């Protein structure tokens, strides 16, 4: 049996992985590599390409708009990631309750995740519309003054984060509740006998035992947050005056509105490398923990 296995191993590996690898290389790896190639050129899509070496990269680190877009993205990652994870966790604690309200809540919490970015974006742009949107209408009807949800630079990013939270927290809820369901009931029973309160149970049992899940949620969430684009594009268009412009949006605009494809490629390569580094660090920490 063993020799037979060795005989066909190569063939089988090829046979099983070729379809995926073909599509993957052709439609994901190739465009990235092509983008890397383009990042060394000055090219406006319609003109002839001019090789300029590393100039695009040098320009990026001197371009105030690139740097500010980068810091807005970072700001989004740093604020939204913990928030979405914590809310997802709280939702999971509600969802695992075997009550009817728990079931209804779970259904409702996850529902937004099924919607597309454009639907979520336009819906929240309308809710946060300054003079006619739901949020301010509610505020003014109870005598509070309206907020410039999308028009006040101090608030706009928060509004985008609120919309993202509403949209994606349900996904993390499911990951967490799956993890919670795996924790044996006996552990909780034992804790109860020892007289542990619900807060102690949470901090001493649930959270430590969900370390695995939490790390996975964290990795997925950080990657998703770095790639933020659609909500911003639809809700604020990067405004007011560029204060919510994120990296993917700047790349998109540079490439497709200003036609500087070489420069846009260079910036997307930088973003790709950053995401790769951050995720690899997290993934390695994860595998260290499990082994």
């Amino acid at each position, binding site marked *: 049996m063993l020799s037979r296995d060795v005989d066909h191993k190569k063939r*089988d590996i090829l046979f099983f992985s070729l379809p995926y690898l073909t599509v993957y290389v052709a439609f994901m790896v190739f465009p990235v590599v092509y983008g890397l190639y383009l990042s060394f050129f000055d090219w406006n899509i319609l003109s002839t390409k001019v090789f300029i070496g590393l100039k695009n990269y040098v320009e990026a680190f001197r371009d105030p708009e690139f740097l500010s877009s980068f810091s807005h993205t970072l700001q989004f990652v740093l604020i939204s990631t913990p928030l979405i994870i914590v809310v997802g966790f709280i939702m999971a604690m*509600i969802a695992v309750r075997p009550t009817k309200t728990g079931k209804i809540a779970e259904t409702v919490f996850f529902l937004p995740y099924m919607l597309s970015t454009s639907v979520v974006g336009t819906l929240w742009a309308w809710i946060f519309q300054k003079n006619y949107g739901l949020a301010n209408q509610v505020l003014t009807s109870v005598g509070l003054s309206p907020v410039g949800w999308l028009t006040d630079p101090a608030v706009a990013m928060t509004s985008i984060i609120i919309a993202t939270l509403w949209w994606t927290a349900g996904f993390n809820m499911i990951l967490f509740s799956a993890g919670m369901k795996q924790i044996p009931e006996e552990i909780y029973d034992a804790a109860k006998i020892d007289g542990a309160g619900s807060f102690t149970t949470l901090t001493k049992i649930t959270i430590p035992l969900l370390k695995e899940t939490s790390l996975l949620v964290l990795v997925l969430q950080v990657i998703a947050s770095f790639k933020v684009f659609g909500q911003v594009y639809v809700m604020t268009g990067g405004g007011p005056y560029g204060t919510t412009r994120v990296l993917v949006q700047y790349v998109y605009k540079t490439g497709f509105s200003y036609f500087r494809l070489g420069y846009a490629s260079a910036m997307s390569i930088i973003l790709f490398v950053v995401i790769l580094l951050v995720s690899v660090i997290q993934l390695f920490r994860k595998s260290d923990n499990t082994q």
Partner: protein
Amino acid sequence: MKKPLAILGELFIALLTVLWIMPLVWLVVTSLKSENTVMSSTLSFVFAPTLENYRKAFASTLLGRWMLNSLAVAVITTILTVLIDSTMAYVLARIPFRGRNALFLFILAGMMIPFEVLIIQLYLECTTLGLANTLVAVILPRLALPIGVFILTQFFKAIPSVLEEAAFIDGASRFTVFRTIILPLSKSAIFAVAIIAFINAWNDFLWPLVAISSSEKYTITVGIANFQGTHGTEYSLIMAGAVLASIPQIIMYLLFKKNIVKSIAMTGIKE
């Protein structure tokens, strides 16, 4: 003693639930208002509902056609994704060879690519391949789903190897083992990948927009984007479009809720 706290808890849950459903309620409410009343009566939930926006959507566009296109794209993408992701995952989970971990990382790296920035490169590539303005071009770049490979690999790894070994001793080929043992045991994980692939394909916007140039081949997300006016925003019509584009997923979700929830949970389950 504990009672008030429990009531408070229930109240909190109820509040959070209402808060979460509110935007969707408002989405539907707005879509039922006429363009002239939408701005003047934002808060009123009592009004004469009108299906005018929906009528307009159906009368002036190829809405039915776009829905069918989206359905075709999403279903074909889902089936093919599951096929190629599962065979790839089988290799990564069950056939040990040198460089396997490297290959796994190489594939996971795909998760980090922001798809939006590759659009032009992809378009040029698809045109060179003669795929411009075809639904094939919409489908192909979406088939390699790294998260799908990740989920399936984790799941396949957890299947006890005794079953497989027994089959090998009986002279079964890897293909037979994959088909008769691995796949049937992985229904829930496969469902998870299928759901993710379906949602992705259905909600995809930018790529189909660029890849398709004739309106009879638009997908629903591309089609309804045109509801947004050239200058200015007609909120009630846009919301009607949003409702129409979301109905299929919402129905699917309510029908298969249990399976969907269970299968997304797969992402997080470790061996």
